[in-house]
C-alpha cells in the first residue's frame, strides 16, 4: 500500500462530531468560489482565538499555518474544510463572519485543496468474492451455481465485502476454490460420472404457508419454489417432509389436503394427505403416522439436464376452514404446539440422477461447445477454439499462447482416456482453478517512479467497469473495445457505462451495493420477539427486502435523482406488505408499484426493511435508528459509547410501563451520555411512530407517541416527515455520503483525505444533472482513482 502510514481517514472528535451534526441537519450555505483576499484575516479573527500555538485547541495551530502551502498539508486542511462545509466551526456562541464571507472562505479552501495533484490509489490483488465468482460463472458458462455451498464467506470492511485488502488467501480457501472448479466444470459440461447427490431446501419455520407463494402455480398455498440445475438427463427423486409440532405431531392432518409437485410449472405428482383416516391414526401413533405421511410425499420423475424450477405446494382447499381461534395471527406457524390449521412444508430434497441417459442439451453446454468436431482430425482445432474462447472470458483478456498451451495440456490426456467432452472438461477445470481467473490483477508498468500516477490499460479498465456495475466479468463487446484500444475514449466510455447500466446484469448494484449500503442483507437475521409481534412472519421479512430492492432498482432503471430514495411518492408492495402498511386494494403475492399517499411512508425512512433492521427484538431503538441515519445517510462516524455506560433500567414488577422516550430520558441525565444522545435520540424519536416491525402506531406503553424533538441546533421537528425535510435541507450531504459509499464499492478500498477532492467534484458535477443515478455512476467511473492507478513505492512490506 502506498504511503500506508500516512493514511488517515477523516475523523471527527466526539465534541466536534456533535456540532457537525447540528449543521449537517440544517445549515444552508450555498457557496460561490470567490478568492477572498482576507482568508488569513478570517482565520485570525475567528479561528486563532482557540487554535493558536499557545492553546493548541484540538491540536490546531492556525496562527502558524502557512496558507500558501495548503496542498502540502492536505490532511489537516481537509479536516478544516469538513468543519467549514458542515458549518461546525466556529462553535455556536462564538463570533462568526457573515454568511457570504464564511461560504467564500470555505469555497476558497476547497478550491485550494482541489489543486493538489490527483490521487489514484492502488487495489491489491483481489480474489473474486462469492458474488463475483457466482456471476462470473453465470456469464462464462451460462450456469447458476449455489455459491454459498461452494465457497466460504468473505470478510468485509468499510461496509462492503468487495474490499481487495480483505480478499486474501489461505489454504482452506484455495482448497475450496479448487474443489469448486472441479464441481462447476463437471456440472457445466455434464460429466456422466457425476454421482447421485442430494440437495435439500429448508423452509423457514416462520414462513406462513396458508397463502400463495410467488412463483408457484395459482390456486396453491404455501410450499417452496426453487431453481435447480439438474446435472444430467435422468431420473430424480423428490422427497418432501412436513412440519411437526414440538410434540412430534404432524401439522394439518385433520382436513384432507392435496400436495402438488411441479417442474417448470407442470404438475408431476399429486399426493393426498390428511382427512379422517390420517387423523385417527395420528392420535394413536403420532410419530409413525407422520413418518407414513412423509413417505407418501415422494415421487420419482425423469428430468432433462439443466436449470428447472421445482415447485411444491398445497392445492387451495375450498372446504378448509381455519379452526376457530380467539385471535388469528398473520403468521400461521406462531404456535409450536398447534397441530391444527394448514400443513406446512419443512424440507424438500432432490436426489439424483439415477439411470442417467446423458448430458442433455443444457444452456451451459450450448455456451461451451461453440463447435463440434466433425471428425477426429478436426478435434484439436475445435478444442483449441473452445479453450481460447473460455480463456478469453475467464481471464478477461486475450490469452497468451502459453495460456492456451498450458490449458490444452489438460485437454490431451483427458481426451486420450475419455471422449472429447472429457477433454474439454479437464481444460475447463484447469481454467477455473487458475489464479488468472480467481484474482483480479493489474499490471504495474515498468519504469514508473514511485507514487507515479498512470492510466490503467483498456483491458484493466474493462474489468474495473464490469466488476463495478455487474459484479462480474466483461462481456464480448467490452473486451472487443478494450482490445481495439477504444475504451478509454471518453465518448465510447460513457456510452459503455450507460449500456451496462441498462443491462439486467446491473441488478448486481441492487444486490451487492444497495444490499450492503442499506444493510438489507442483515434482515435475514432480524427475528422480532414472537410474543410481542405474533404476526411477523418470513413472508413479511422477504417482502420488506423485496420492496427496498425493487425501489432501488427503479431509481437505477428510470435514472432518477438519488434524492428520490428519500422522497419518492411511490413504492412496491404485495398484499402482505400492503396490509402491513395499511394500503387498501392490493391483493395477491405479486409485487406492484403503488403511489404512496401517506407522506410518512415516503422514501427509505418509511420502509419496513430499514425500520426493522434498526430495531431490537422487543422494541424500537431510537439510538440505532439515529446512528443508522447519521452513518449511512449523512456519512458521519458515530463514536462508540464510552466505558461503563449504565444500560436502560428494566421495568420492575408492579411498576407502570414507561414509554421508550421516558426510559431514554433517564439515560440522558448522565452528562457523558447526553453529549451524543442529545443528537442521536431526537432523530430516532421523530421515527417513534413506526414500531419495531415498521407498523404505524399512535401509542407506546399506552401513551400517545411524542414524535417531537429538537435537533441539536434548535430545529424543531415533529415526526418523520419533518425529520426528512430537515435531513434534506442540505441535499449535498446525502449525495456526498452516497458518493463516498459508491466510490468505496467501485474501487474496492476505503477512502482517505486524498480522495475527498474527487468526491467533491463528482457531487458538484452530478448536481447539474439533478443528482441522477447515472450522473453519479458516470462521475465515479470517470474519476481519477477509477481510471488510474498509483505506482507502488519501491520495495516495501
Amino acid at each position, binding site marked *: *500500500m502506498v504511503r500506508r502510514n500516512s493514511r488517515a481517514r477523516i475523523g471527527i472528535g466526539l465534541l466536534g462530531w456533535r456540532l457537525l451534526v447540528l449543521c449537517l441537519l440544517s445549515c444552508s450555505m450555498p457557496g460561490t468560489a470567490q478568492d477572498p483576499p482576507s482568508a488569513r484575516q478570517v482565520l485570525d479573527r475567528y479561528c486563532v482565538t482557540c487554535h493558536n500555538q499557545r492553546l493548541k485547541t484540538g491540536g490546531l495551530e492556525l496562527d502558524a499555518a502557512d496558507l500558501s502551502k495548503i496542498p502540502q498539508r492536505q490532511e489537516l486542511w481537509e479536516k478544516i474544510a469538513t468543519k467549514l462545509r458542515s458549518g461546525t466551526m466556529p462553535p455556536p456562541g462564538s463570533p462568526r463572519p457573515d454568511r457570504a464571507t464564511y461560504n467564500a472562505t470555505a469555497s476558497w479552501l476547497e478550491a485550494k485543496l482541489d489543486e493538489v495533484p490527483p490521487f489514484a490509489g492502488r487495489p*491489491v*490483488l483481489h480474489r473474486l468474492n462469492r458474488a463475483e465468482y457466482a456471476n462470473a460463472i453465470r456469464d462464462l458458462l451460462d450456469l447458476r451455481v449455489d455459491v*454459498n*455451498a461452494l465457497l466460504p*464467506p468473505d*470478510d*468485509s*470492511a*468499510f*461496509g*462492503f*465485502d468487495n474490499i481487495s*485488502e*480483505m480478499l486474501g*488467501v*489461505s*489454504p*482452506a*480457501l*484455495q*482448497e475450496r476454490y*479448487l474443489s469448486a*472448479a*472441479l464441481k462447476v466444470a463437471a456440472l457445466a459440461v455434464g460429466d456422466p*460420472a457425476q*454421482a447421485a*447427490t*442430494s*440437495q435439500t431446501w429448508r423452509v423457514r419455520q416462520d414462513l406462513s404457508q396458508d397463502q400463495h407463494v410467488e412463483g408457484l402455480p395459482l390456486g396453491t398455498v404455501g410450499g417452496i419454489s426453487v431453481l435447480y440445475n439438474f446435472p444430467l438427463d435422468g431420473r430424480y427423486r423428490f422427497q418432501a417432509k412436513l412440519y411437526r409440532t414440538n410434540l412430534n405431531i404432524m401439522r394439518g392432518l385433520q382436513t384432507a389436503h392435496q400436495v402438488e409437485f411441479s417442474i417448470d410449472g407442470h404438475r408431476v405428482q399429486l399426493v393426498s394427505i390428511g382427512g379422517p383416516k390420517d387423523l385417527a391414526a395420528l392420535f394413536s401413533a403420532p410419530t409413525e403416522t407422520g413418518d407414513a405421511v412423509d413417505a407418501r410425499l415422494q415421487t420419482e420423475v425423469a428430468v432433462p439436464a439443466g436449470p428447472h424450477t421445482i415447485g411444491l405446494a398445497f392445492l387451495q382447499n375450498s372446504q378448509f376452514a381455519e379452526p376457530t381461534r380467539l385471535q388469528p395471527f398473520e403468521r400461521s406457524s406462531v404456535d409450536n404446539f398447534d397441530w391444527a390449521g394448514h400443513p406446512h412444508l419443512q424440507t424438500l430434497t432432490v436426489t439424483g440422477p439415477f439411470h442417467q441417459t446423458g448430458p442433455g442439451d443444457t444452456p451451459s453446454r450450448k455456451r461451451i461447445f461453440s463447435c463440434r468436431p466433425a471428425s477426429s482430425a478436426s478435434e484439436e482445432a475445435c478444442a483449441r477454439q473452445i479453450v481460447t474462447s473460455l480463456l478469453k472470458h475467464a481471464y478477461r483478456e486475450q490469452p*497468451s499462447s502459453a*495460456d492456451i498451451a*498450458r490449458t490444452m495440456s489438460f485437454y490431451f490426456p483427458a481426451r486420450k482416456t475419455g471422449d472429447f467432452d472429457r477433454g474439454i472438461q479437464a481444460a475447463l*477445470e*484447469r481454467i477455473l*482453478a*487458475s489464479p*488468472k481467473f480467481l484474482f483480479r*490483477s493489474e*499490471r*504495474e508498468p515498468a519504469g514508473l517512479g514511485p507514487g507515479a500516477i498512470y492510466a490503467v490499460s483498456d483491458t484493466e479498465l474493462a474489468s474495473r467497469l464490469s466488476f463495478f456495475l455487474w459484479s462480474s466479468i466483461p462481456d464480448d463487446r467490452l473486451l472487443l473495445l478494450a482490445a481495439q484500444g477504444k475504451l478509454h475514449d471518453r465518448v465510447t466510455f460513457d456510452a459503455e457505462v450507460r449500456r451496462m447500466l441498462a443491462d439486467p446484469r446491473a441488478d448486481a448494484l441492487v444486490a451487492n451495493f444497495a444490499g*450492503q449500503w442499506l444493510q438489507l*442483507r*442483515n434482515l435475514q*437475521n432480524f*427475528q422480532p420477539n*414472537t*410474543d410481542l409481534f405474533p404476526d411477523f412472519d418470513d413472508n413479511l421479512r422477504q417482502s420488506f427486502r423485496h420492496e427496498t430492492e425493487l425501489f432501488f432498482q427503479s431509481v437505477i432503471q428510470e435514472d432518477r435523482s438519488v434524492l428520490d430514495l428519500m422522497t419518492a411518492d411511490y413504492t412496491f408492495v404485495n398484499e402482505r406488505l400492503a396490509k402491513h402498511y395499511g394500503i387498501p386494494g392490493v391483493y395477491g403475492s405479486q409485487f406492484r408499484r403503488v403511489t404512496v399517499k401517506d407522506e410518512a411512508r415516503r422514501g427509505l425512512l418509511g420502509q419496513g426493511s430499514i425500520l426493522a433492521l434498526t430495531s*431490537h*427484538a422487543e422494541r424500537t431503538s431510537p439510538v440505532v435508528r439515529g446512528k443508522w441515519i447519521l452513518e449511512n445517510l449523512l456519512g458521519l462516524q*458515530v463514536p*462508540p459509547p464510552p*466505558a*461503563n455506560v449504565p*444500560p436502560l433500567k428494566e421495568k420492575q414488577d408492579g411498576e407502570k410501563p414507561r414509554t421508550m422516550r421516558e426510559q431514554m430520558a433517564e439515560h440522558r441525565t448522565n452528562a457523558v451520555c447526553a453529549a451524543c444522545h442529545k443528537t442521536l435520540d431526537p432523530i430516532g424519536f421523530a421515527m417513534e411512530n413506526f414500531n419495531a416491525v415498521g407498523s404505524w402506531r399512535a401509542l407506546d406503553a399506552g401513551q400517545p407517541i411524542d414524535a417531537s424533538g429538537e435537533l441539536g441546533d434548535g430545529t424543531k421537528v415533529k415526526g418523520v416527515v419533518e425529520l426528512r425535510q430537515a435531513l434534506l435541507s442540505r441535499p449535498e450531504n446525502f449525495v456526498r455520503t452516497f458518493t463516498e459509499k459508491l466510490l468505496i464499492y467501485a474501487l474496492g478500498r*476505503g477512502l482517505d483525505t486524498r480522495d475527498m477532492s474527487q468526491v467533491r467534484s463528482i457531487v458538484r458535477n452530478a448536481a447539474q444533472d439533478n443528482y441522477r443515478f447515472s450522473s453519479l455512476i458516470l462521475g465515479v467511473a470517470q474519476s481519477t482513482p477509477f481510471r488510474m492507478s498509483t505506482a*507502488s513505492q*519501491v520495495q*516495501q*512490506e
Partner: protein
Amino acid sequence: MMFAIRKSIARRTVLRGLGSTIALPLLDAMFPSLTPIAKAAARPRKRFGAVYFPNGAIMQQFTPKSFGADFEFTPILKPFEPYKNNLLVVTNLTRSHPGSQVGDHAVSAAGFLTGVWPKRTEAEDVFANTTIDQVVAKQIGQETPLPSLELATEDFSGYVGGCSPGFSCAYMNTISWSTPKTPLPMETNPRAVFERLFGEPGTSEQRRLRLEKQRSILDSLADDAKDLERQLGPRDRGRLADYLDNLREIERRIQQVESRNVAETATPDAPIGTPDNFDDHVGLMFDLAAAAFQADATRVFTFMMSRELSQRTYPQIGVTEQHHSVSHHLNNPQKMAQMVKINTYYATLYAKFLEKLRSTPDGDGSILDHSLLVYGAGMGDSNGHASDPLPVVLIGGGTGRGARHVQLPVRTPVGNLWRNVAEAFGASVDQFGDSTGKTDVLA
C-alpha cells in the same frame, strides 16, 4: 512437486526407533507391545481442541467456591462432572486489556487464544497473534491431512454493522489465527466440513481420481502465478507468494490423503446441509470434529459455538430474549438466571461431545484420554464486559489426573496458560502475546 513435513513429532520418532512404519491410527493390539517410553511419548496429549462460547458468563455460577481437588461443581460446570477424572478449572485468567473498554466483543473473540489486544482497525491491517491452536498445529498437525480444523455456526458473510465499532469483522468471525496477520476463516456448513475431512462422497475410485486430478492441476498453477508475478507490484507479489505457499500446503495435504488407503477409510454419512436448529447444528459440528479425531484427519480443532454479540434466542430452554441482551443482566436476578441457563445449556452441548470422545476407543484408552481440550471465553462477567476473571476449563487426559480447581494470582494473562499448553505439546514459546510468565497447571 514440493512436499515438506516441517515438524516431526515424538511418536513418529518412537515408531521409527522401533523399526515400524505403521500408518496411523494405531491399532489397539499394538499398544501392549510398546515400551513404557513409547506410551509416555504417545499420550496423553495427542490432540488439542479449543471450544469458545460468546457473551461471557455468570462467574458466580461458573467458578467453584473451593480450590484444589475436591471442589463442588457449580451449576454451569455441572454437565462436566462425569469427566472429573481429568478436569482442570483455571481461575483468575485475564485477557489483554488496553485500559479503556472499546470493542470488547471483538477483543474477547480475538483476544482469547491470541493472548493479545488486537490492533484497533476496521481495515486491511488486522493484527493479533498466532493462536495457541495454531502453535500446537505446527507441532502436531503436520502428519494429518488437515493441520487444523476451524468451525463455527453462524455465517456472517455480508453482515455489516454488526461488529464492534472500530474493529474489523475479521476479529469476530474467527478465534483462530495462523499468523498475527492471518485470521483463519471458520467453516459453518457441515457439508463443507465433511468434504474437507473426507472428500466428496463417492466411490473410492472416484475419490482417488479426484485427488489425482487436483494434484496435477496444483502442479501446473505455479506457472500461471509466475506469469502474474512478473507484472505485479510488490504488495501484490506478497499476496501471490502466500498463494504459492498455500498451493504447496494443499499438495502436502493431498499427498497425506493419498498415502492412506482411501478405500479403507470409513467415512460417516455426509450431512446434507446446514441445519436450521441450533442444537442440531452444534451437535453436527461436534460430531464432525469427533469423526475427524477418530479418523485422524486432524488433531487440532477450534470451534466457536456461537459468535460474540450473538442475538440468538433459545426457546428450547425457555430463553426467548436474545443472548446478547440477556448477557447485560444489570444484576437483575431473573436475567442472571436466564444467563446461567444459557451458559449451562452450552456446557451441556459440549458435554455431549466429551461423551462421544470418551466412548471412542483410541489405543489403550479413549480419544478423550489422549486429548487436551480447552473450553472457555474471552469475556468474564458479561454485564460490564469484564476482561477477567475468564471462564476457562480444561478437560481430557492431557490435563493430568483428577479434578482440580487452580487459583492463579489475580489477573494472570491468558498467554501464561497458552505457554504452558504450548510446552505440553513440545513447542517452546518464550513469550505468548502479553504473557508475563508461564503457568504450571499442566505439569
